[in-house]
């Protein structure tokens, strides 16, 4: 099928970019300014959705802008993998934009213009990355995303904020200016191009196994946003950001950009054949299994709800990578749809954490006894999303975990089956107590009676909880895209 040439990939990026500009210009007119983000999100989602039929039919939407270097263009290509990431990001931006307004207004946060402008730019970068046709274009958006989320992390501008944001930048920039840079230069040296190629750009390249192995691991750790241990420490540090940032960016856009890049490398730079041939798949699988289990153990020990969610994210991101590197088609499908499944559920959980904080000022799980009776919608949504994280049917998490477990059996790797099951037990161990305490714990007698749901915050989190269930019941769209990637 011939690629469709269209301006739409660029338009999707531009919408968010223009939104950021509009936010800056409307600095003083808060009501109008706050309208910009949700509107832009809806337009962006519409543009992304308009390309879905072409991609579902096995085609691509291409836009080549200009040549940067011989073998490197500034170019967009919307394919199935990019579509998964872009659909999730743009769809969830709509709810997150509404949630942000509620959250920021309720807490009367400072520097809201900067916040919304950076937020919109982050989405432009995320979708730009999803639609990039080669590593060069992808890396430009990747770095823009690192930079514009930095002010969002130091948002509070207090001691904690500066410390956390410093760690954030050191990890992300450090990894990309060392490992990633080396990987890019070596890839360009070996292949003379940085394009994504079905079957792998480096497949059949004239390079030694050890060199390719070095390049591979440079990518894996260079894309620190994927948070494979030991490159994960930035993510808990980023939790100093306001909760909408943690929700959309550090559970969806930023971290998914990381695993998305890793998947691009596995599928379209190395190719499944080469990753398998060099024995890199199984090596990576062990590496990410360690991350999956270890991060879950960390999560168990955290009483701060956002910190627990952050470590849970570290663990869940590695599911996506695990699915890809098991190299069996079913596992790959599982990994890819876990991008969406985890996004819907984890954003819900973060939204809930923010809702609890807005309503009661509480951050520690041990202080949340009985809060479910005050915030039934919030904690109900939290429970539903928890089930999805654990992988209970009929939620989204069940579908992806089903494919992942089936895939590890298909790959003949029982070890990873055990990892997946053990991890699910751990998930249950650190998520279910939160709901239990919230609904059945005895409320502290001195707690104020003013704790109640905030509509602008609650509606979005209920919506994403519903999405988590809907995707569990109707996984067809994401399954079709994932199968399009695997082929």
């Amino acid at each position, binding site marked *: 099928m011939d690629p469709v040439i269209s301006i739409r990939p660029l338009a999707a990026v531009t919408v968010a970019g223009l939104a950021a500009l509009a936010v800056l210009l409307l600095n003083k007119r808060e009501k109008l300014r706050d309208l910009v983000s949700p509107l832009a999100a809806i337009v962006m989602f519409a543009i992304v959705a308009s390309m879905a039929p072409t991609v579902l039919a096995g085609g691509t939407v291409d836009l080549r802008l200009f040549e940067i270097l011989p073998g490197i263009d500034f170019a967009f290509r919307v394919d199935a993998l990019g579509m998964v990431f872009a659909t999730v990001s743009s769809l969830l931006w709509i709810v997150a934009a509404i949630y942000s307004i509620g959250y920021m207004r309720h807490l009367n946060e400072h520097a809201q213009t900067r916040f919304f402008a950076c937020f919109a730019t982050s989405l432009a970068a995320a979708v730009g990355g999803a639609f990039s046709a080669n590593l060069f274009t992808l890396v430009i958006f*990747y*770095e823009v995303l690192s930079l514009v989320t930095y002010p969002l992390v130091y948002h509070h*501008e207090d001691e904690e904020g500066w410390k956390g944001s410093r760690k954030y930048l050191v990890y992300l920039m450090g990894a990309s*200016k060392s490992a990633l840079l080396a990987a890019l*230069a070596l890839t360009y040296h070996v292949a003379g191009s940085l394009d994504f190629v079905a079957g792998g750009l480096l497949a059949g390249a004239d390079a030694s196994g050890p060199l390719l192995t070095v390049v591979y691991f440079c990518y894996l750790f260079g894309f620190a946003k994927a948070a494979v241990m030991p490159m994960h420490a930035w993510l808990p540090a980023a939790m100093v950001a306001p909760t909408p940032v943690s929700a959309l960016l550090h559970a969806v856009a930023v971290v998914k950009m990381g695993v998305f890049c890793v998947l691009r490398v596995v599928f379209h730079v190395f190719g499944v054949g080469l990753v398998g041939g060099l024995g890199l798949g199984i090596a990576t699988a062990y590496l990410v299994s360690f991350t999956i289990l270890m991060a879950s153990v960390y999560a168990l020990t955290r009483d701060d709800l956002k910190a627990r969610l952050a470590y849970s994210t570290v663990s869940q991101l590695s599911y996506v990578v695990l699915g890809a590197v098991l190299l069996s088609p079913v596992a790959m499908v599982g990994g890819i749809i876990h991008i969406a499944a985890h996004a819907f559920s984890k954003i819900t959980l973060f939204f809930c954490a923010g809702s609890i904080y807005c309503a009661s000022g509480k951050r520690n799980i041990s202080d949340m006894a009985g809060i479910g009776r005050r915030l039934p919608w919030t904690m109900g949504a939290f429970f539903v999303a928890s089930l999805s994280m654990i992988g209970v049917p009929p939620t989204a998490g069940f579908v992806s975990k089903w494919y992942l477990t089936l895939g590890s059996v298909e790959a003949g790797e029982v070890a990873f089956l055990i990892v997946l099951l053990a991890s699910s037990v751990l998930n249950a161990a650190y998520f279910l107590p939160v709901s239990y305490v919230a609904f059945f714990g005895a409320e502290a007698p001195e707690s104020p009676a003013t704790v109640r749901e905030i509509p602008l915050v609650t509606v979005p989190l209920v919506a994403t909880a519903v999405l988590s269930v809907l995707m569990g019941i109707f996984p067809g769209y994401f399954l079709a895209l994932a199968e399009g990637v695997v082929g």
Partner: protein
Amino acid sequence: MTVPLLSLIVFMPAAGAALLMFLRNDDAVRWTALGFTVLDFALSIVMLAGFDTTTHEMQFTERRPWVPALGITYALGVDGISALFVFLTALLGWICVLASWVAIDRKVKEFMISLLAMQALVLGVFCALDLFLFYVFWEAMLIPMYLIIGVWGGDGRVYAAFKFFLYTLAGSLLFLVGVIVLYFQGGETFDILALTAQDLPFQVQSWLFFAFLIAFAVKVPMVPVHTWLPDAHVQAPTAGSIILAGVLLKMGAYGFLRFSLPMLPEASVYYSTLMLALSALAIVYGGFLALAQDDLKKLVAYSSISHMGFVTMGIFALNLRGLEGGILQMFNHGVTTGALFLFVGLIYERTHTRSIADYGGLMKVAPVYTAFLALFTLSSMALPGTNSFVGELLVLSGGFAANFAVGAAAVLGALLGAAYLLGMYRKVALGPVSARAQFKIHDVNGREITAILPLAVFVLWVGLYPKPFLDVMDASVKHLLTQVHDRESGQ
């Protein structure tokens, strides 16, 4: 008769300098200097517009006999490599004038004369096709630079100027010896193109290579002959720093490209590993030095050493990507580091301190200034999307092809770059507003933005669409490579 465009470009600033001698009013001096440099810039654009990118031959050539008895001619011409630097020099020329507008408040006339003379001589270096003529420009340029640092510099200006002079002169003397040897070995001619076509015995090439190496390495500067640079930069006035970083350092690298590689191909290939190792050393050592600085100007100065290491690394990778990347990095370094020195100068004029520890929260006080500073900081650390990233990717790609270990060391240098640049930016621009920054800081004005904007344009232009720049040099670089490799393998 065709217009002698290159002569016009070279002597336009000189004519301006001559005219300045008759002016008395400081403002008239400034405007006249600006007029001539802008005119020169316009001429350089005319030159680039008429430049034929399909050939490696010298273009806009002019030849007039000068001292026929000794075979000395007045010969000018540009190829794809020098054309870029003529353009860069002309661009930075008027930016330097703007940068000195209020910063230089005494002996304005003398300063502008030195600046314009300087520009004329540097342009002469890049255009000369006669070795003797080249040497004259190369040496004469020391005098105005010495004056710029020694008269209008900071408190330690005399020491710095003297050190600069001594280092460069020592290198130049060896260069002179090399020139004389070349003259006799190459058939008693000073014609650079004719000398390039000579096949010298390897023994002679080796001696010449090291004579040239010391001369050029001082200019670049390469470790361990770099120590004059931080002193010179810290003491020089802003315009002096811009021209020093922007074009003077380029002359060393240009020397490698114009003399060492094409005239001494076998020696260049033979000693390339040594050169790559020295480059890697400069990248890493310069990076560590920059990391340790509290003085803004020193930080940028040491970063220059690291960045020029990328340039020499690209050149001595001796492959297409490396060379093109190295030359592109020369241009990028001129733009970006020139801009950073300008920024240090702008803030120093306001606060009279260069200590990073005195700053903080500038973003709240001078948002436009800090926004542009962010752009150039990111450019200097080679963020994807900016000019330096394209150059760095090419250099590393070429470097890895030449020598894996050297490439890996350079990556470490890139990491260091991110560390000291982002650290500097965070301390200066973000955080609570420091006591120093709270009063008397006004944001950049129209004149300053005029100087900044073109540099900002080049950061993004080269970063996203470097093709026109690579097209200019492409034919010449490919030709240079055949000169090096064909003759090296033909022996």
